């Protein structure tokens, strides 16, 4: 890639080097080059495929796709709905995720462990199930919550089939992404920065607003960026909640143009290009914000002892709030899931229903021949892609944040590209390439691994870049002056300091990779099934009860994995909380 070939990389010319040595790449250059190339390759293949499909047809260059995509009387309403929905969900998830992360990391809030689980679980529950459990909870017709409050407020108090309902469900479902990002940010923030503000006479709220939030700005910007693009792209919630009352959004449109035969790639591409432009502007903006000074380097070489802020009399109030949140966002959907998984078909709970409950669905799950293979494959792919992506993105983040190579921003933007590429297009692009590749990757688990790495690269990059912004450059320079080579510095100083962010990204990727469907379904082959495909099959069969059982198993598996990861991570990374 041109970005890595820039001569500026080679600034470190060893004095004694022979003439030929200068032409040999240093390990640093080599590593950066490889990472840059891999990112470029992963991003450009589907992008090229997308752009080609968008701008070229049988007669050459054409923008007819744009006309078909945007030349619709309803497009403004669509865009309006989408933006409203995306902004709402982003704000909700940001507020909820940030507040939870702050309380969890920086205060002596009770039930911390429970709390941590509560904050991640919504991520683990597959989108379809999460949305459906909310229908079962808050539909005006059959919602359990509505039934519960009916004597007080009358029927149909909550209506999940409105734009507000959509924002609520999507916002809660996305909030773990923010939570993970913010936890990493808050963990590496010196509390004395806040304490000094407190001593200056500011109230807690002012401190939070004027000190904490500005210091966490890179993480907040990254969150907003991901949230907005994610909600613009979200399909399950608009499809299950929005369509019922005719609330159409951007993705509904992409869905419609891809659904028919021949699929209108030009129009879908044109819509994706719109998203792409939005996203690139977003990345550029977030980099400007992130770069504007060293103010965000909260991990400095001066030690700090994080003392959790004492909530005092508010402790019990906040504690109650957390229990309430936990019940609302985790227990309720999970209970619905668990409840459904014990039934033969969904029905509102009565005494009679409890008598007929059965473990039949779990038995069916065990009997499913593919379930074990799928679980194994999902584990391999999830752990593999999470590890690969975070390893590469750690280096890429250094490249983008610390190196002075011209054009390094392009790497950042490239890494963001896959976020806007529809899963189906990614699947097609990869199958197109690897069907023609001399290396037999098509039809193996590897092609899924490549797909997952591509899809989750943007998240990994955001997590890594955000953490990198927080690390004071002096920590790196001091290692360098101490005689450490670039690679030694990277391995022994940067990676451990990035650990909280890398771990958060790793957990996120692991968890969401279990749900990846849209490109998996096109790329898997017999024997390479993954869990999400099983879920999809159960879903298509209308086997909601078995599906719920599968969901319960998935949630338990991932909670176990995530706990192990954090236990291990605590040993590797910054040991600050103890």
């Amino acid at each position: 890639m041109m970005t890595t070939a820039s001569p500026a990389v080679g600034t470190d010319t060893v004095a004694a080097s022979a003439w030929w040595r200068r032409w040999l790449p240093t390990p640093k250059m080599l590593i950066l080059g490889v990472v840059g190339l891999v990112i470029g390759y992963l991003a450009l293949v589907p992008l090229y495929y997308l752009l080609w499909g968008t701008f070229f047809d049988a007669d050459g260059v054409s923008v007819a796709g744009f006309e078909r995509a945007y030349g619709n009387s309803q497009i403004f309403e669509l865009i309006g709905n989408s933006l409203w929905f995306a902004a709402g969900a982003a704000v909700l998830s940001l507020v909820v995720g940030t507040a939870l992360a702050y309380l969890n990391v920086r205060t002596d809030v009770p039930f911390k462990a429970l709390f941590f689980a509560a904050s991640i679980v919504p991520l683990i529950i597959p989108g379809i199930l999460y949305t459906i459990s909310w229908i079962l909870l808050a539909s005006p017709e059959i919602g359990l919550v509505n039934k519960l409050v009916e004597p007080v407020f009358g029927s149909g108090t909550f209506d999940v089939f409105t734009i507000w309902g959509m924002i609520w469900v999507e916002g809660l479902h996305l909030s773990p992404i923010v939570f993970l990002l913010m936890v990493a940010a808050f963990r590496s923030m010196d509390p004395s920065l806040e304490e000094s503000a407190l001593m200056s006479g500011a109230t807690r709220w002012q401190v939070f607003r004027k000190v904490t939030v500005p210091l966490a700005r890179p993480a907040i910007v990254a969150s907003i960026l991901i949230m907005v693009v994610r909600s613009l792209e979200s399909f399950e919630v608009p499809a299950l909640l929005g369509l019922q009352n005719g609330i159409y959004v951007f993705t509904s449109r992409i869905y419609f143009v891809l659904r028919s035969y021949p699929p209108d790639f030009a129009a879908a591409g044109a819509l994706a290009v719109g998203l792409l432009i939005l996203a690139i502007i977003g990345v550029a903006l977030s980099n400007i914000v992130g770069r504007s000074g060293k103010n965000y380097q909260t991990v400095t070489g001066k030690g700090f002892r994080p003392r959790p802020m004492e909530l005092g009399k508010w402790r019990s109030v906040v504690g109650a709030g957390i229990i309430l949140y936990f019940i609302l966002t985790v227990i309720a959907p999970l209970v619905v899931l668990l409840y459904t998984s014990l039934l033969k078909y969904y029905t509102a709970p009565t005494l009679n229903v409890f008598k007929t409950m059965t473990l039949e669905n779990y038995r069916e799950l065990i009997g499913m021949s593919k379930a074990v293979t799928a679980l194994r494959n999902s584990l391999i792919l999830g752990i593999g892609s999470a590890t690969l992506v975070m390893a590469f993105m750690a280096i890429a983040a250094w490249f983008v944040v610390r190196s002075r190579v011209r054009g390094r921003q392009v790497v950042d933007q490239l890494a963001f590209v896959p976020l806007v590429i529809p899963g189906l297009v990614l699947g097609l692009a990869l199958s197109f390439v690897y069907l023609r590749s001399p290396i037999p990757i098509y039809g193996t688990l590897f092609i899924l691994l490549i797909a997952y790495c591509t899809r989750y690269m943007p998240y990994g990059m955001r997590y890594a870049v955000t953490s990198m912004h927080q690390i004071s450059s002096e920590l790196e320079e001091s290692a360098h002056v101490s005689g450490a080579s670039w690679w030694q510095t990277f391995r022994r100083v940067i990676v451990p300091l990035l650990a909280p962010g890398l771990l958060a990204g790793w957990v996120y990727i692991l968890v969401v990779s279990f749900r990846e469907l849209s490109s998996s379904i096109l790329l898997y082959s017999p024997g390479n099934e993954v869990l999400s495909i099983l879920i999809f099959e159960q879903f298509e069969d209308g086997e909601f009860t078995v599906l719920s059982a599968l969901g319960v198993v998935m949630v338990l598996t991932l909670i176990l994995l995530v706990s192990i990861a954090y236990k291990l991570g605590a040993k590797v990374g910054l040991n600050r909380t103890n």
Partner: protein
Amino acid sequence: MLRIDNLVKTFAGERRKRSRNGNGDAKGPAKIFAVNDVSFEVGEGELFTLLGPSGCGKTTTLRSIAGLERPDAGHIALTERVLFSSKPGEKPVNVPANSRGLGMVFQSYAIWPHMTVFNNVAFPLQVMKRAERPGKREISERVMRVLETMELASFADRHATKLSGGQQQRLALARAVVIEPSLLLLDEPLSNLDAKLRESLRYELKRLQRELGITSVYVTHDQIEALALSSKIAVMSDGSLVQMGRPRDVYQNPSNKFVAEFIGTSNFISGVVSGHNGERYTVETNDGRLLLDSAADMPDGTEVVVSIRPESMELSEQHRPGQPNQWSGNVLTRAFLGDSVDHVIGVGKHELRVRCNPSISIAPGTDVYLRMPPDRLSLVPVN
């Protein structure tokens, strides 16, 4: 020992100020000279201080020596070893920071928060090239030896972040000297400490530097620190070196107003040279005539500024006949500082600060006489 010649470092100045030296050439990219043609030499075992206000280029100079910044031009050599060179026509040299074998203490200490005290200090030894790297046991011995010197041995297994400010500062120093570098670089190492600690560590630092005998380059904006520690001071302003010399010389004979102003407190009285006889000058000012000694060569009629330190003036309520440079004035305010008393004296339009022995304290409003010994006045050219 360390020799710097004609060091130049510019930054692209797209934002703030335009180049001072640029002659209005609007087409060329505006550049800010962070370091503009700086040369100096540091002798073996010396503690050389780069002193100046923030933004004067002292840190950039230090970072250029460390190899953390790449200068645009110049020559940096440590004894016989060239660290950086960009003479036209010659092969450019830029030894990477990690091959220079120097020790450096950063302003923020840059202690790695994920490592223990021991590991922080051991790191520079552990990352040495395989051929030079000492064995595990030797590393351990050397680290403990340094930690003992720094009185940190009992904290070896603690997490570095759990040390107090002063301990962290010593840890940073320990890490910098563990490889016994030929040159130690210190970037405002005391600026993060409270006043009391700063003072005690200042002497500690001086003692250690002497004991270890390491040639050091010290960067600070604190003139007291500079005066107390250094064998030699170089004052920098706007990227240029404005005066260099032993602390006493720089303090007593500032070569220009900037230095006089920056180092210590000075009173300035402007006037015109009206005559001179050898080194004895006569300067006419608005408030009277001043006699002073100066080695400077200034023709009659030159506009000058006369500077005098507050503690160099004498104050009394009585006129002392037969003494030169005796002016009358009025006490405007006074302040008790413990070890001294500051008076502000109004003389004509001037307000002069005089520092007196605590036994002398004159109430505001009193008429007084001010005496300025000719050998304590220095002549500073205007610009």
